[in-house]
């Protein structure tokens, strides 16, 4: 493949993936509103389009047209940079997520992935770990006590749970013997999904990932009842929308990672003509990701919020020892078998 073709294919892939991701983000908001409404015996959005399906478009237009207020007491450079940092890091991590297998398009072929790096998992972890700055800086630069408390809570929580999140993945890595997301999925062929081999790791990952994305029951950084709106109290219009999009993009990334690491990624029954064989893996992948997105909403409207000391105690005294124990047991079993 010549360099020009490579660049053209890369650009096409980036644009498509970005478009799909942003659409997914918009419709996760719709999903959230719809599911939460039905959980609470309401209808949710119904007015804009059939089943309120055009609601995300209306929301987007509203965000763009709203007045963008900047309070005089904020520290401006960081106040403006914070939502950008949040959104950029939230979106970048999708670039190493594989959606499916090799496909042939005419004379060329490509993996359904923007770029295949052999340390894909570490790249995702690295990029998501940088996302903390958006929240922390937003809280600090707003120059407002609620924002500051929200930012502090968010950064302490994300740093604490990142440890157990990383450790919970080590078991999967030991079994797969690779850091490449593609290899990890390939190691789960024949229904050897990691959810069956690493159930403890899966639940640790799920809980820490909820804490990482600041979702209920870990939504203390923006706990409305005590902190107004936490770190984004002073933000409005598009700047607020950027935080909002970052949160949902992070949820999508977490759901993708859970699918890839524990639920066999795009693996599933594949049959029929070649075109169907090409589409089915992507369909399985999207279906699994959708289930995780649904779970997010379901959990949000089922569990109450943690208290802050409970959150920290749970992270450090329960999840971390469990994750370490899981790593030790997995390593011993793998070493004994080898």
């Amino acid at each position, binding site marked *: 493949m010549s360099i020009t073709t490579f660049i053209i294919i890369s650009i096409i892939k980036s644009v498509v993936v970005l478009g799909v991701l942003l659409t997914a983000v918009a419709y996760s908001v719709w999903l959230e509103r719809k599911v939460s409404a039905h959980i609470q015996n309401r209808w949710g959005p119904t007015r804009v389009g059939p089943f309120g399906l055009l609601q995300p478009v209306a929301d987007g237009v509203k965000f763009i047209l709203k007045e963008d207020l900047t309070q005089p007491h904020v520290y401006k450079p960081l106040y403006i940079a914070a939502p950008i940092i949040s959104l950029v890091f939230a979106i970048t991590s999708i670039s190493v997520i594989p959606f499916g297998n090799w496909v042939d398009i005419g004379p060329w072929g490509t993996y359904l992935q923007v770029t295949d790096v052999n340390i894909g998992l570490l790249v995702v972890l690295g990029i998501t770990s940088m996302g903390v700055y958006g929240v922390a800086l937003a809280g600090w630069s707003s120059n407002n006590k609620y924002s500051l408390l929200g930012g502090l809570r968010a*950064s302490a929580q994300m740093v604490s749970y990142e440890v157990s999140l990383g450790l919970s993945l080590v078991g999967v890595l030991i079994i797969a013997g690779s850091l490449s997301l593609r290899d990890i999925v390939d190691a789960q062929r024949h229904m050897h999904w990691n959810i069956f081999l690493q159930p403890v790791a899966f639940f640790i990952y799920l809980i820490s990932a909820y804490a990482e994305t600041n979702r209920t029951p870990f939504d203390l950084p923006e706990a409305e009842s005590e902190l107004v709106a936490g770190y984004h109290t002073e933000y409005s219009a598009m700047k607020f929308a950027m935080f909002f999009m970052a949160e949902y993009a992070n949820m999508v990334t977490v759901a993708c990672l859970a699918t890839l690491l524990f639920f066999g990624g795009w693996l599933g029954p594949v049959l029929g003509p070649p075109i169907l064989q090409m589409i089915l893996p992507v369909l399985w992948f999207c279906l699994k990701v959708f289930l995780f997105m649904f779970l997010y909403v379901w959990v949000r409207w089922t569990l109450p919020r943690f208290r802050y000391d409970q959150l920290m105690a749970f992270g450090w005294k329960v999840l971390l020892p469990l994750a370490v124990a899981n790593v030790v047991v997995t390593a011993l079993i793998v070493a004994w078998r080898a």
Partner: protein
Amino acid sequence: MLHLILFLFFGTICVAGAINLLAQSHPINSALSLIAVMASLAGEYLLLGAEFVAAVQVIVYAGAIMVLFVITIMLLNAGKEERTQGSRVAILIGVPGVLIGGVLVAWTLLHRPDMQTVPIGALKGDPSDIARLLFHDFLLPFEVTSVLILIAIMGAVVLASRPEAIARPHRSTPGPQETRELVATGKDHR
């Protein structure tokens, strides 16, 4: 060619970030410049083909250590620093020292006839190679370092905790007998 452009790009960010770190008077700006330095260093590692080292650089330094820096600055609510005239030691020893060091490094790089160069990507930075080095070739130093860090953490905990908190178990609510006494005497002993 592309390599050289990217090298210069990340190198410029790195040096500019380092200078900005010293020039800024607000701690949080300095911390952010340090993050830029770390991130651009990761970019340089990537150019050398050491993807694993680059990822670890971002995760550990930019993602964990610098977050703690930023949290500390936010917690202490550190304000702007005052400008000083600069210390005499820095001018008398520091500046000539840096100059001599720079000249030495440049001279060594330029005038070593037997200097060997390695093509980009020839040095393996795979996780498996690094794992072999850490857990096989240098196992003892690695484990000793981890014990050292553990001791440092324990020392930090001991130093940070107040002595009375260790000596006497923390009790937030009075027991039933105490409550009766408190009601009887009408004052809070805590």
